[in-house]
């Protein structure tokens, strides 16, 4: 960990060397470690220490960006000049108005000393708890146990100065037999909140129960999606539809449909960088404080997230604090999504199902038609048939091709507990319930 003082010193060094009309500096520090295991043994065990500085220089309406991870004073001064030189080559961006003005930012505690100090040996012992259960059941475990600290400092020449430090620990495993697999994962700010033995127990249980799977014909089924699968659908909905840029460019399902009912009454969705049940981040990569943004309210589309650029295109709009590092062609994105839980237990979901499919998680999901929120992907690591209110047998994996909004219109039950799911992409963390959904479309099968 580098610390607020040193990161601020680096930012100040940049700003004092700057001669552009406006200058923004983003300093990111990271100290990350990951212990990876496969075939019941640790096979990759890595650590990384890095500090990088990104400078956005504004000359009139010309913008230049340069970055480096050489943080010597001389290098930082060169970096500033590089960004300013690039800006001078630029053509004017008529849409640019200004870097953000400073706003009050609430400091949030997202740091765990235990996580920051976690050693390779501690991670290895945690992995050992998972491997012990796998070996005891003649199964094969793979997975990862990671811990890390990330620091973020954003300053600009208008007075923005924001610092945040957070830790994250996560453990996940896939435990396999010759013809089956089971999955479990957990993520938390404090590594002590993880229970590797419990993760191993859940995955072993699923691997044992999913042995000797049989096929089922594709078609529409009632599904019970575990939290991981729901979080994947939330991620794609956020990425495809809730960015103001996608809305403005007419490629979002929200374009022209704000205020309309697009999902079922059960679905209320929002983004909140302050909720400690998720990954806390109190401001965005432009130094703008995050707002809690309601996106779907009982199925009605009510909002989108904005950064400075998209807000400046709409009279009266302000950034909601969802900007990404410059230069950003993706537009703003929600990275802390929450779905309002229901009041059901998973047992109740199963008991109420005449015939359906239990899905542990999805694999390799991608959009087929973004405006229709149509996705395709596979099930993996624990797919089961439900008949007459109980799980009766394991199934070979299935391909789904399904619109998210249609699925969210057919939700019958949501679980009463949310689980924090760390996505595989960047710092996306979603808090999702399990969901019972009717008429979910499976379009193909595979051999395992």
């Amino acid at each position: 960990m580098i610390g607020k003082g040193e990161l601020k010193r680096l930012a100040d060094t940049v700003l004092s060397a700057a001669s552009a009309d406006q200058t923004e500096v983003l300093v990111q520090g990271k100290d990350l470690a990951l212990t990876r295991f496969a075939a019941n043994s640790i096979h990759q065990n890595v650590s990384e220490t890095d500090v990088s500085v990104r400078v956005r220089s504004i000359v009139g309406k010309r913008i230049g960006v340069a970055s480096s991870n050489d943080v010597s004073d001389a290098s930082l001064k060169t970096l500033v000049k590089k960004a300013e030189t690039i800006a001078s080559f630029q053509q004017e961006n008529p849409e640019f108005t200004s870097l953000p003005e400073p706003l009050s930012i609430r400091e949030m505690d997202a740091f765990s000393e235990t996580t920051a100090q976690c050693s390779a040996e501690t991670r290895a012992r945690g992995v050992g708890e998972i491997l012990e259960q796998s070996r005891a059941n003649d199964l094969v475990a793979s997975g990862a146990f990671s811990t890390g600290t990330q620091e973020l400092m954003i300053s600009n020449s208008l007075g923005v100065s924001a610092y945040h430090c957070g830790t994250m620990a996560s453990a996940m495993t896939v435990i396999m037999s010759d013809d089956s697999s089971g999955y479990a994962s957990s993520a938390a700010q404090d590594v002590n909140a993880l229970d590797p033995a419990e993760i191993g127990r859940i995955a072993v249980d699923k691997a044992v129960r999913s042995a000797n799977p049989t096929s089922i014909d594709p078609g529409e089924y009632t599904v019970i999606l575990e939290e991981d699968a729901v979080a994947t659908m939330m991620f794609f909905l956020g990425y495809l539809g809730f960015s103001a840029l996608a809305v403005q460019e007419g490629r979002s399902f929200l374009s022209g449909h704000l205020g309309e009912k697009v999902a079922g009454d059960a679905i209320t969705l929002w983004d909140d960088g302050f909720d400690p049940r998720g990954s806390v981040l109190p401001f965005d990569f432009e130094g703008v404080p995050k707002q809690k943004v309601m996106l779907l309210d009982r199925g009605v589309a009510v909002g989108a997230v904005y950064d400075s650029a998209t807000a400046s295109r709409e009279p009266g709009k302000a950034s909601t604090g969802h900007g990404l590092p410059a230069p950003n062609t993706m537009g703003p994105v929600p990275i802390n999504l929450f779905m309002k839980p229901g009041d059901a237990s998973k047992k109740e979901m199963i008991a109420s199902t005449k015939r359906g499919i239990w899905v542990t998680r999805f694999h390799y999901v991608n959009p087929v038609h973004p405006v229709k929120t149509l996705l395709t992907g596979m099930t993996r690591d624990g797919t089961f048939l439900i008949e007459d209110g109980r799980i009766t047998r394991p199934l070979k994996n299935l391909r789904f091709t399904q619109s998210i909004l249609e699925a969210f219109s057919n939700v019958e039950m949501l679980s009463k507990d949310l689980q924090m799911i760390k996505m595989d992409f960047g710092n996306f963390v979603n808090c999702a319930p399990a969901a019972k959904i009717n008429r979910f479309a499976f379009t193909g099968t595979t051999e395992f």
Partner: protein
Amino acid sequence: MRDYTTRALDVAQGKGASYADIRIVRRETQDISVKNGIVQTLSLDDDFGFGVRVIANGAWGFASSNRLTEEEIDRVAAQAVTIAKASALTKDRDVEIGPAEVHVDSYATPMEIDPFDISLEDKIDELMSADKEARSVTGLAMAQSTMGFLRETKTFASSEGSFIEQTLVESGLGITVHAVSEGEMQQRSYPNSFGRHQGTAGYEFIKKWDLPGHARGAAEEAVALLSAPQCPSKTTTLILDGPQLALQVHESCGHPIELDRVYGTEAAFAGTSFLTPEKLGNFRYGSEVVNLVADATTPTGLGTYGYDDEGVPAQRTDIVKNGEFVGYLTSRETASQLRKTHPEAPERSNGTMRADGWNRVPIVRMNNVSLLPGEPTLDELIADTDDGIYMLTNKSWSIDDKRLNFQFGTELAYEIKNGKLGQMVKNATYTGMTPQFWGGCDAVCNVGHWHVWGTPNCGKGQPMQTAHTGHGTAPARFRNVQIGIM
């Protein structure tokens, strides 16, 4: 550099490493994008650091840092050994990496024009010209054109005595356009989707692919797609263009032949493979016309280099020969492991270990996994097809975690009727199972249609690593394919 590399290797061995290597890597990137007449991105990025990989107590350890100083080298090398010893707490066997690889050499990407010598103004002018051409088409909503350039300078040294210096240069370009109507968005890209087409080459690559000359055509197709009928749903004959076929090769051949994946080291994330070791030399992957190679020496390929990140020389390996599965992508460790069950397998790695920068450990990655060309021209292939569909340029992709069941969507498609291209259709998709699909391949177009397409966004590993891979393909025909899944 030798002072630093020697110090790292000495410290690691002094702390108990039986093997050590160090990579010192600098990546300089230049990204430019123009969207609807405005320069959106103009950035120069410089990333530098080193990573030390060791075997101690029979297990792997790796540590890295962005500060190349003597003190930091000592700390990181010692940390790598500490991590390796922690890894050893759970081992059930010692790591074996086979015979020593000792090479003292250098390599640089062959190129005619250094892209970093071309002015930013010239590059922006080229993109602005493409943007103007695209947006001259009535009804277009968005045009985004990009260029990207990479220079990676890396030094590899190992405790076995290797010292290798390489400079790899990549150039890439692309335009993507959108046309939108109520509830519909259509996209076209040139020369390929994923933002850009890229190769290990200089600025001559940019000139060759001529963005301004193709931007208007792409825009016209996007607008026309809005009013095109939906792709029908049926089983039919499918012809794929080169860029879409490149991704088909990537997903359904390139990934399942990664031997680390076969042995389960990616099981928890990317998945495993249906091409298990007992199938090597004993499995029909495709029809007689299917010949695939992995070749890290293919000119301009995005997976072309002098040595991999374990210091093994670039080489060409047969993967599928006349439809039979004959080879894997290997590392030193996995090649040794394979020999235990297949004594006839090569003793040495075929050189496919690559790391996504100084702070990542090398893993088995595709280099240029390519489908070798066949005989007919594309016109001859279409003329020889009574009823079918021709699909172009990838739009969506998904495949199961053993690489069997896949589903792809393409930006554009045309029906084929009586040997001629018919009407344009939109939202085309197709699905299948890998061996059956390649078993239905009855023709691959000739070398005149063959290009090495770049895939600059291949994700694998934890922490996630993004690799740049190449795939040489010419259009090919597949029988009895299910299309139109929506």
